[in-house]
C-alpha cells in the first residue's frame, strides 16, 4: 500500500519530468521576446520571397512573347511556353508565396505582443516592421491574383493544429481591396530610408509601397490613384534615370539610382539564385559561361529591337548573340544578358574567366528588380493615356526613350497608338524582368477586354500558322490567361475551386 502511494506521488511529479524542450531549436514560448526577434522574422519573410525569384521570372515571362525555349528547358516549362498548361505543372505551385504571406501574418500577430515584453522596443518600431510585413503580403497577393486570379485570402498566422487550413477562394476584387487597404496602412509606417544602400533598395520603403500601389491601381483601372502614387515617387526626388551609357549598371552591380525595390542577393553571404544558371548558355566544351540554356531571347524580338540600332539597351546590353565557344559551334542564339553579364560590351572568348561574364555558379547573385524608376514613368504614362492626358503621357514616354537614345515618339492624339507604343517600350525596357505577361494581360483586361484581339495578335504574331491557330482559340477565353491551381492543392483541399477553363479541358 505504501508502495502504491509512493508510486502515485511519483506519477504526479512525472508530468513535469516528462516535459523536455529541444536544445538545438527555439520554441515559440522562448521566442518573441525582443525587437530583434521581430526583425529576424521580417528578414525571413524577405528571404522567402527571395526564394521565389526563379518562379517570378517564369510567371512573368514564359507565356509572353519575348523568350523562346533553350536547349535544356525542362519539359514542364516547355509545356507552359507552348501553351499546353495542365494543373499538374510544377509552375502552378503557389506554396512559396503563401509561405511569404504566412511569415508576414506571423509578424503582424506577434510584433505588437513584443512591444509589451521588450522595454526597448516601442510601438513605432513595431509599426515599421508591421508595415514591411504588410508590403510583402500585398506584393505576394498581387502576384497571386495576376497569376491565378481568384485565390484564398489568408490573413491569419498559421500556428497550431486547431486552425482551419482549408480556405475557399476569394474573388479578386476582395483581394484587391485588401491590398489597397494594407498598402495605405503600410505607407504610413514605412521609412523613406534605412540609411544603408542595400536596405534602401532591398527592404520596403515608402517609395516601394507607392510603386506597388501604382501598379495595383493601374491593374485594377483606378488610373487617378495610380498617377497619384507615381507622383509621390517622382516628386520625392530620390530617384532618377541614369545616363544611357551606364544603363547596364541597373543589373550589374545593381542597386542603382533607378532602383526602388529589388530583392538582394550576395554571393559572399551564400545568397544566390538560379537566374544565371537558367539563362547562361551551355557551351558543352567545359568553357564559360557554364549555364543550362533553359531560356533565350526570341530572335523575333531581337529584330524588333534592331529597328532602332542606336538603342542603348539593344545588342549585348539585353541579349548576347551566341554560337558556342571553343570547338563546339551551333546556330546563333540570344542569351538574356541582364543576369549573366557584368557589363555591356563583353569579349567573346572561351577562357575560364572570360571578362564580361559573371563567373557562373560561383556568382549567381544578380538582384531581382521589382520596381525601378522607368517603370513609374511608364505606369504613369499608361494611366494618363486612359484619362486622355496624351501629351503628358508622350512626354513621360519620351523621357525613357531619350535616355535609351532612340528617337522620341510623336503624340498623334490616337489613344490606341500611344497605348501600343508604351507597351512596346515596356517590352524593350523590362525584357526578362518578369513583367511582360502581366503587362499583356493588364492591356487585355482593360475596359472590359476592349483590346483583347490586339493582345491575341501580339501573342500569335511570330508563331507558325498552326501554333497561331491554337493560341487564337485558347486565349479568346480570358480564363486561360491565369494558371490553374496545382492539382495537389485541389486534391488536398476540397474547398478549392479550379479555374473553370481547366475543368473541362
Amino acid at each position, binding site marked *: 500500500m505504501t508502495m502504491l502511494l509512493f508510486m502515485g506521488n511519483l506519477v504526479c511529479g512525472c508530468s513535469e519530468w516528462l516535459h523536455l524542450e*529541444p536544445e538545438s531549436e527555439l520554441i515559440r514560448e522562448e521566442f518573441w521576446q525582443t525587437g530583434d526577434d521581430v526583425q529576424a522574422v521580417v528578414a525571413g519573410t524577405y528571404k522567402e520571397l527571395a526564394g521565389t525569384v526563379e518562379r517570378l521570372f517564369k510567371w512573368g515571362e514564359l507565356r509572353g512573347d519575348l523568350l523562346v525555349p533553350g536547349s535544356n528547358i525542362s519539359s514542364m516549362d516547355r509545356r507552359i511556353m507552348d501553351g499546353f498548361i495542365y494543373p499538374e505543372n510544377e509552375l502552378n505551385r503557389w506554396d512559396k508565396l503563401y509561405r511569404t504571406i504566412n511569415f508576414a501574418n506571423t509578424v503582424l500577430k506577434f510584433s505588437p505582443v513584443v512591444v509589451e515584453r521588450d522595454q526597448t522596443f516601442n510601438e513605432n518600431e513595431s509599426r515599421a516592421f508591421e508595415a514591411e510585413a504588410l508590403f510583402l503580403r500585398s506584393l505576394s497577393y498581387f502576384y497571386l491574383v495576376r497569376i491565378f486570379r481568384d485565390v484564398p485570402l489568408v490573413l491569419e498566422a498559421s500556428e497550431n*493544429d486547431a486552425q482551419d487550413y482549408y480556405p475557399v477562394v476569394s474573388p479578386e476584387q476582395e483581394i484587391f481591396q485588401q491590398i489597397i487597404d494594407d498598402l495605405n496602412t503600410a505607407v504610413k509606417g514605412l521609412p523613406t530610408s534605412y540609411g544603408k544602400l542595400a536596405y534602401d533598395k532591398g527592404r520596403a520603403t515608402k517609395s516601394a509601397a507607392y510603386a506597388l500601389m501604382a501598379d495595383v491601381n493601374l491593374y485594377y483601372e483606378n488610373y487617378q490613384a495610380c498617377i497619384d502614387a507615381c507622383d509621390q515617387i517622382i516628386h520625392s526626388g530620390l530617384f532618377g534615370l541614369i545616363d544611357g551609357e551606364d544603363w547596364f549598371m541597373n543589373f550589374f552591380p545593381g542597386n542603382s539610382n533607378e532602383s526602388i525595390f529589388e530583392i538582394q542577393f550576395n554571393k559572399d553571404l551564400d545568397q544566390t539564385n538560379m537566374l544565371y544558371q537558367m539563362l547562361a548558355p551551355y557551351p558543352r566544351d567545359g568553357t564559360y559561361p557554364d549555364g543550362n540554356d533553359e531560356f533565350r531571347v526570341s530572335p523575333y524580338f531581337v529584330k524588333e529591337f534592331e529597328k532602332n540600332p542606336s538603342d542603348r539597351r539593344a545588342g549585348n546590353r539585353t541579349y548576347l548573340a551566341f554560337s558556342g565557344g571553343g570547338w563546339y559551334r551551333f546556330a546563333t542564339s540570344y542569351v538574356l544578358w541582364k543576369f549573366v553579364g557584368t557589363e555591356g560590351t563583353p569579349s567573346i572568348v572561351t577562357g575560364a574567366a572570360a571578362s564580361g561574364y559573371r563567373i557562373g555558379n560561383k556568382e549567381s547573385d544578380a538582384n531581382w528588380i521589382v520596381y525601378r524608376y522607368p517603370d513609374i514613368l511608364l505606369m504613369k504614362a499608361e494611366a494618363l493615356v486612359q484619362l486622355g492626358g496624351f501629351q503628358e503621357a508622350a512626354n513621360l514616354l519620351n523621357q525613357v526613350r531619350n535616355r535609351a537614345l532612340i528617337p522620341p515618339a510623336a503624340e498623334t492624339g490616337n489613344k490606341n497608338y500611344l497605348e501600343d507604343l508604351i507597351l512596346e517600350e515596356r517590352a524593350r525596357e523590362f525584357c526578362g524582368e518578369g513583367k511582360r505577361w502581366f503587362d499583356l494581360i493588364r492591356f487585355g483586361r482593360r475596359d472590359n477586354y476592349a483590346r483583347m484581339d490586339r493582345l491575341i495578335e501580339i501573342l500569335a504574331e511570330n508563331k507558325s500558322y498552326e501554333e497561331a491557330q491554337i493560341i487564337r482559340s485558347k486565349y479568346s477565353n480570358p480564363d486561360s490567361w491565369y494558371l490553374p491551381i496545382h492539382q495537389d492543392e485541389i486534391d488536398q483541399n476540397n474547398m478549392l475551386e479550379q479555374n473553370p477553363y481547366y475543368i473541362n479541358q
Partner: protein
Amino acid sequence: MIKKIHTVGILIMLVSLSLSGQAVNVLKGKVTDRSTGEPLIGVTVVEVNELNRTLNGTVTDMNGNFALRLSAPDTKVRISYVGYKSEEFVMEGQDFLEVELAEETRELEEVVVTYEGKKVGGFIPVSERDLTSAVSKVEMSELEEVKASSLGEMLQGRASNVDITMASGDPGAGMSVRIRGTASISGSNQPLIVVDGVPFEIELDNDFDFSAVTQEQFSGLLNIAPEDILSIQVLKDAAATAVWGSRGANGVLLIETKRGVKGKTSFDYLYKLSIQQQPRAIPLLDGDSYSMLMLEGILNSGSTEIPDELAYNKQWEEYYNFSQNTDWLQEITRTGVSHDHNFSLSGGGESALYRFSMGYFDQDGTTKGTRFQRVTSRFNLDYNVSRKLLFSGDLSYAYSDNDLSYKENNDSRSVRALAYIKAPNMSIYEYDAEGNLSDNYFSPADNFQGQGSQWYNPVAMVNEAMWNRKQHRLRTKLQLRYNILDNLVFQSFVAYDLDNQLENKFLPQVVTGSPWTSPYANLSSGMDYQSSVLETQSQLLFTYLKGSRHKLTSMIAFTLSDRKNGWYYGSTSNLPSAYLVNYAQPAPVYWIGDGYSQNRMVAILGFVHYTLLDRYLVQLNLRREGSSRFGNESRWGTFPSVSVAYRISSEPFMDRLGFINDLKLRYSYGVNGNQPGGSYGYFNLYSTSQEYIDMPVVIPTNLQLDHFRWERNSQINYGLDLFALNNYLELHFDVYTQRSKDLIWENLDLPATSGFPNITRNWGSMDNRGWEVMFVTDILRRDELKLDVNFNIAHNENRITEIPENFDFEYEAEADNGQYARRALEGHPIGAFYGFRYLGVYPTDADAVATDAKGNTIYDLAGKPLYMRYGNADGYRFRGGDAIYADINHDGLINELDIVKLGDSNPKFLGGFGSKFTWKNMIVTLFFHYRIGQDIVNRTKMYNENMYYRNNQSVSVLNRWRRQGDITDIPRALYNQGYNWLGSDRFVEDGSFVRFKSASISYKFRKLASRIKLNEFKLNLMVYNLYTWTGYTGVDPEVPMLSNDPFFIGEDKADTPPPQSYMLSLNIKF
C-alpha cells in the same frame, strides 16, 4: 519503499542480537568425495541463519579438514563445493561432522534460468502452461544445430507470423522484422527487442537527420552473438505486449541470454568457418552487343550523330578505352569467407553463478571491399547473498567494424546496381592511344554514359572508396531481488545502454575522375552518433496459492526510461591527398551538421493472473504510460487488456479423451498505444536560416500540435493450444483482428495556403487481420532415434479502413517512366501499387491506333485513324516497336486514367518448416523458409531492359523489336524518348518463394572426447540458402522491407542477395 526499509532494519537488528548473545562453540570436521573417498580441498563450510544468510565461514585444508566457530549449538551449517551437490546440516550440539559430497552431474539440456524459474512474457511471472495470451517460443535447443552469424538469419521462418527480411546479403546488414504485419502508418513498425528484461534499441532516433546516412544499413544492428542466447519469445497480441507499453505495440521479441549454472566450471569453444558464394547474376550484354544497342537506340531517337565511343574508330585516342568487353559484376564479386570464434566459461557455486563469454567474428563479403568484424563479450553474474536477497549484474560489450560498399546517400545506387548498368565496352584500367594498358583506373568524370555518382568505375569504387562504420555498444544491468515474504517479492533493476557509432566515408579522386577543384574530388565525410538510455524498473510481486483450487499471481510495477541522442556529421572535400581520409582535415567544408534530442517515458503497471481449478484462467493488465513526445494535454495514455483461457483438458469429463494431454482455448482483448518518432513534434519550433542582406533570419518551421494524442491499437485474439498423443503432437492456432485508430500521420500534406507543407495529425484507421498456425510433432521418440517435424504458417491481411478527408492519396508523379502509383485507399492495403497493363509491342507504326471498347479503330473527323498518344492529345505518339499499354478508357490516350491495381507487396502466407533427426551421436536438421503471394517490382529488370538510357542491359534485350513487322515482347531501343518503361505489370512479378534455408549435419565424437578428456567434441557441417524455388526472374525474391514509408513497396534494386554459404564448425566443451 518505506516498508522495505523497515524490514531491512529489523533484519539487521535480529542479526546483531543473535551474534552477541551466544556461547562459544567450535565445530570440526572432514569433507571427502563420496565416490573416491578422497579428501576435498577448499570446500566452503558456512554457518547460515534461517534466511540462509551467511554468518560465519571457512574452507577445508589439504586433508579436507575444517574448524568453524559457531554462534549457537543449534545452528545450521552448509557445505558446498564447486561441481558437487551442497549439503546442509542442522546442528544439535555436536562438535564433529564428517561429510561425503556427491559430484553434481549436469545435463546441458537443463539450462534454464536459475533463480526465477521458467517464466514467460518477460517480467510477468506466469508459466507457459498458464498463458492466456498469444506468445510464441523459439526453442534454442532446436536451434542449437543451426549455426548462424546473426540473430535474424537464425530466426527467419522460425516463429509464426514473424516476417524477417534481411536488408541485403552484405556482411553486417540490418534486418527488418514485422510481427503480424504493418500496424502503424508512420514511424517504425519494428518490434521491441528486449534483452534480459531491458529494451534494446536497434533503431536510430527519429530526430536523427538521415540526409547523410542510409537508414536501411543502419537499422537492426543487433550485435548479440547467437551463442549467448538462451531463448527467444515472441509476444504478439495486445494482452501480451501491453505490459511493455507503446514501445511494444508492434510486438515484442524477448531474448534471454545464457547465465551461469551451478556446477564445475565448464569451458565451451566453438569455431565456425564459412564460405559464401554469390548466386548467379542476370546475364548482361558484352561490350559489342552493348555498342550495337546504343547505336540503334540513338538512331531510333532521330539523331544521326555517332558518338566516338561507339564508332570503333581506331584513330580516336580513346579507342582502346571504349572497345573492351568488361564483365563489371564479375569484377566486383568474390568468394566470401568468414571465421567465427566463440568462447564461454560458466559455472558457479552456492552463492555465485557466473557466465563469461567472448566472440570474434570476421567476414569478408561476396562484394569486394565489404567486411564485417565483431567482438562480443558478455558477463552475467548472480550472487545469492541469502535465500532472501539476490543480486545480479550483467555487462555486455560489443564492438563492430564494418566496411560497406560506398553509397552516396539513401537514393544512390549500390555498387552492385552500378555494375549492372556500367557500359561493358569501357575498360577498367586506362589504355593510352597506342593500346598500352596502364594501372590507373579508367574513370573519366564525364564519359559517354554521363557524369556523377552513378557512372563511377565500380572496380575503383570497391577498391578505393571507403565507407566504414564502427560501433561500440556497452550495456550494464544491476538487479536486486528481495523476497520479503515467501509469496511477496520485490525486484528492481537499473540498466544503462551506451551506443556509439562512428562513420567515415571517403571518395577519392581516382574513383570520380573529377577535377581537383570539384566538391567531389577527395570527398570525405564522417558521422558520430551517440545514444545513451537509462532504464529502471521496480516491481512488487505477490502470489497466492490455495491447494490446486486458487492460484493468484499479481504484480505492480513502475518503470521509466530516459534516452539521449547526440550526433555530429561533417564532410570536407578537395583534400590534398587520397591518403588523408579523415573528414576533420583542414579542407573546404562541403556540409556540416549536428543535433541533439532527448525523450523520456514513465509507466506504472498493474497485473493480475488468476487460475481457478486449473481450468479457468483470467489475466488483467493496466498500464498507464507517459511520454515526453506529447504535449501536456495528451501526455498520458491508459492501456488496458484482459485475457481469459479455458483449459478444457482439466475438466473431469475430458478424462475419457486420454489422448489429449492439454487443450486450452484463449481469448484476449487489449489496447496498446503508439507514440510519434520525433521528440519535440508538438512544439511550435523556430529555427535560424540563411540571412537576408545582413539581417539574421528566424522562421517558424512547424505548427504547434495541441490536439495530438496517442495512436491506439486494439487487438482481439482467439487462440488454441493443444498437446496430444502423449505430447507427440503440439499445435498452436491463433486468429486475430487488430485495429489501429487515431493513426499518427507524420508530415501529412497540408494545403500550401497554410504556409506549411505538412502537419502531424491523428487521423484515420487501419486493420490487420490474420491467423497463424504452429505445429510440432515428434514422429519418433526413442532413446537413440528421434525425428521431429515442425511447421508454421501465417496469413496477415492489411487494410486501410479510414483515411483523412483531405488526404492526397497519390504519391509523386503517377504516369511516368519507371513510376508506380502508390495510393492509400480505403479498403486497400498499405503496400499496394498501381500502374499500366503491358500488352506487348506494336509490330508496325500502323498498329499503334486507338481502338474503342469493341476493338475497332477510332477515326478522327477527317477520316484518318487516331493514333495512340501518351498523356494528352499533343503527347508522344506511339509507333511500331513501342510498348502497348491497355487503354482502359479507350480515349486513345495513355495517361493516369488507365492506371489499374497491379500488385501488393504484402505476402499472403509466410512461415517455415523443418525437421530434426537424431540418431545416436548424429543430428541432421533441415529448414525451409517461405513467403508466398507478394508482388515485387523488379527494378533490376526495368533498368536492364528499358533501353532508354546509356545503361548496360540484360541479354534479354537481344530479343528486341528492330524493324517494322517484328513480333516480339521486348520494345525497341529508343534513347531518351518515348514511354516504353512506364510502371506496368511488365516489371511486376510474383515474388513467392520457398527457400531451402539450411541443412546441417553434426556428429558428437563421444569416445574421442573422453579419450582426450573433453566433455564434448562436435563437428557440424552446414549449408545455407542451398536452393530457392521461385518463379521470380530476378536474382533473389527476398527484398528488404525496411523503410518507414507508408507508401513503401517491395522493390528489387540489385542489393547483394543472400549468398549461398557453406559452414564448418567445431565445438569443444571441457
